[in-house]
């Protein structure tokens, strides 16, 4: 145990002093939370008139198209008026309604198939935002980095860029008609786009109110940020393990640091446990910082409890375990970092960390349900936000089993002796 603690201390110190470590594990998640919160949080102050025609109707309007209109409404930015489905000349219809002194014409047409396209498109938007956030932060950080750190980050960014480019472009199923002379057209356009990206979370908020009606504390109103906050935390606990542990361990191995330690009385399990503890501390720090930023910037209501802390520990074991497996199987540092990135970034977006699994298209739900991050983020969300005991227990059980499996395989493939 003494040796484990010494390893824990040394590995943690080494990490805390590395700029690329801090960048990926703390700076990037914090900025991503801020950008997500700002973009998807919705909200505005002035009111603009907006006509909407909804053609995504299947007998009655589809749930998502209706939810979208509701989401636009809930920004309290628009005074919304409806155009019936049989109207074809939207512009003159709006002109007639507004009358001679009516002001700018703003019409939003929701075409048929909106619900389907929406479900497929949000992934691209989210990845795009994360990619550009990462790039912006990198540009700011670049002057302070040395060559290896720069390369490590560039690699992460490239991986993310490739992933982003590989996603199909989203189809336009929303048509926004604006007057050329409209001073506020830019604002209106960006609000509509943001809400388009965010509305399903608003939906989720509504869904939760319904759920909580069965619980004693019905008043609690959840917002988008409350969904994101544990999502961002769990996503980055995942990347810290799958990218961070993999890259660090492979680098330690390549440079003979693990060999140097194996010549001392240090045992393999002591080494692994020291690393897992270091990850746990790092992830608790990440959680604390994200929660404080969430409180300050968005008045988020996440409250960490003992379950959350236990969850973070188990998650750290799980994702460091995956990292150990990868670094046990891959010798080359560059390959390890590339494979870590190639697993972690898609997992971040295909899991339920950033948007509810229920809203995903069927095929994506199947993928999400196969990803450990889905259960981890769901469990952490249950613990930190919903205080939903059943969700905590089921997800904790799944994550614990996975953690045990991966840390055992990880220990087996970690070589403490040369061949």
């Amino acid at each position, binding site marked *: 145990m*003494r040796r484990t603690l010494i390893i824990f201390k040394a590995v943690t*110190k080494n990490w805390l002093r*590395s700029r690329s470590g801090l960048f990926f594990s703390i700076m990037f998640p914090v900025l991503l939370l801020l950008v997500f919160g700002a973009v998807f949080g919705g909200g505005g102050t002035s009111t603009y008139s907006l006509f909407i025609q909804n053609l995504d109707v299947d007998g009655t309007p589809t749930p998502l198209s209706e939810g979208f209109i509701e989401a636009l409404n809930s920004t309290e930015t628009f005074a919304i008026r409806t155009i019936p489905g049989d109207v074809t000349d939207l512009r003159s219809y709006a002109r007639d309604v507004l009358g001679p002194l009516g002001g700018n014409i703003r019409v939003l047409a929701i075409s048929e198939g909106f619900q389907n396209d929406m479900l497929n498109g949000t992934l691209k938007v989210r990845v795009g935002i994360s990619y550009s956030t990462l790039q912006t932060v990198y540009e700011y950080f670049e002057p302070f980095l040395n060559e290896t750190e720069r390369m490590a980050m560039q690699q992460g960014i490239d991986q993310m860029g490739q992933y982003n480019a590989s996603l199909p472009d989203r189809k336009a199923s929303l048509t926004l008609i604006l007057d050329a002379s409209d001073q506020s057209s830019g604002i209106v356009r960006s609000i509509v786009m943001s809400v388009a990206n965010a509305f399903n979370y608003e939906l989720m908020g509504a869904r939760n109110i319904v759920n909580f009606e069965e619980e004693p504390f019905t008043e609690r109103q959840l917002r988008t940020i409350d969904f994101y906050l544990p999502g961002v935390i769990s996503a980055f606990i995942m990347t810290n393990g799958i990218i961070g542990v993999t890259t660090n361990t492979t680098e330690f191995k390549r440079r*003979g640091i693990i060999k*140097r330690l194996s*010549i001392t*009385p240090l045992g393999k399990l002591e080494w692994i446990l020291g690393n897992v503890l270091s990850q746990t501390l790092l992830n608790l720090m990440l959680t604390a910082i994200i929660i404080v930023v969430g409180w300050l910037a968005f008045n988020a209501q996440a409250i960490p409890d003992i379950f959350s802390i236990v969850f973070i520990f188990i998650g750290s074991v799980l994702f460091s375990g995956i990292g150990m497996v990868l670094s046990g199987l891959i010798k080359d540092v560059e390959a390890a970092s590339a494979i870590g990135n190639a697993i972690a970034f898609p997992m971040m977006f295909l899991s339920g960390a950033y948007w509810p699994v229920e809203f995903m298209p069927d095929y994506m739900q199947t993928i999400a349900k196969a990803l450990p991050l889905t259960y981890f983020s769901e469990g952490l969300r249950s613990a930190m936000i919903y205080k939903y005991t059943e969700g905590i227990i089921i997800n904790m059980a799944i994550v614990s089993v996975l953690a045990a499996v991966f840390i055992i395989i990880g220990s087996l493939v970690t070589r403490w002796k040369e061949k």
Partner: protein
Amino acid sequence: MAKKVVEVSSLVKQYGDLRAVDGISFELYEGEVFAFLGPNGAGKTTTVEILECIRPLTSGSAKVFGYDVTKREDAKEIKKRIGVLPQDFSALDKLSVKENIDLIGGMYEKKLDTMEVIKLLDVEDKANERFENLSGGLKQRVGVAAALVNDPQLVFLDEPTTGLDPKARREVWSVMENLKKLGKTVFLTSHYMEEAQVLADRIAIINKGKIAVIGSSQDLISEYGGLKVLVVRKGGKEMAKTLQDRFGGTTLNHNGDVFVKADDVNEMWRVLSTLTEMNLTKEIEIQTPTIEDVFLKVVGGRITEEGELT
């Protein structure tokens, strides 16, 4: 007779089809500096790592302090008592010299005071410097310091000066001379002839997994080094001819330097008195064979600066 610290007998290490260590036997005695001298790929690191209990052997036996390297419990005892500077030593970049030595020291039940070790290696002024900011020579010295932190009886130094510039190399040499003064038994590997000759009490020349010869450098030189050579700088053609008549092995190079080989001391005196008779006024020089000549003789090649056999 000094105590045996290491005892290796018919040691074999097979990597697939490659027999990297091919049935070698040798011993290390308490307090001596023993060197493995050989080119890259000779099997030096493999042998050393088998003795450090981090690489399994294929056949034969290897004992350190009487403990068997293949037994788990024995390996624990061995690890407590050895210090190691691995080939291509490296440490945690963002930790300071002191923190890195503390880290290694922390792995042992009994250890020396870190600052004491740092003083011993004369790196006090760098104690709080991060490892990543050190020069190659300093990094190696930190590596040696880390190897001493558990106050080991036996120290392995695997190619401690490879890649260092001549000045840094000499600094590491002086550190190694101190180890000897401290009474440590040292197992050194190197592909530098001079290093082995200057530092080691006994040298084993190893090539392709086999030990070619083993012994003190004086013994090896007198047995395999060949003849001493007397050189007359710019002696010229005339002199070469005269000497050639009396002493068979005389040669002349394009600078006009004359080389005369002498079997033994008597022969050398005869050459000198002949030169006196000839009223020699030129500069003379006596060249003694070195380990390089021994190596050339027993292996049939030389080792380049990079460690390759030519």
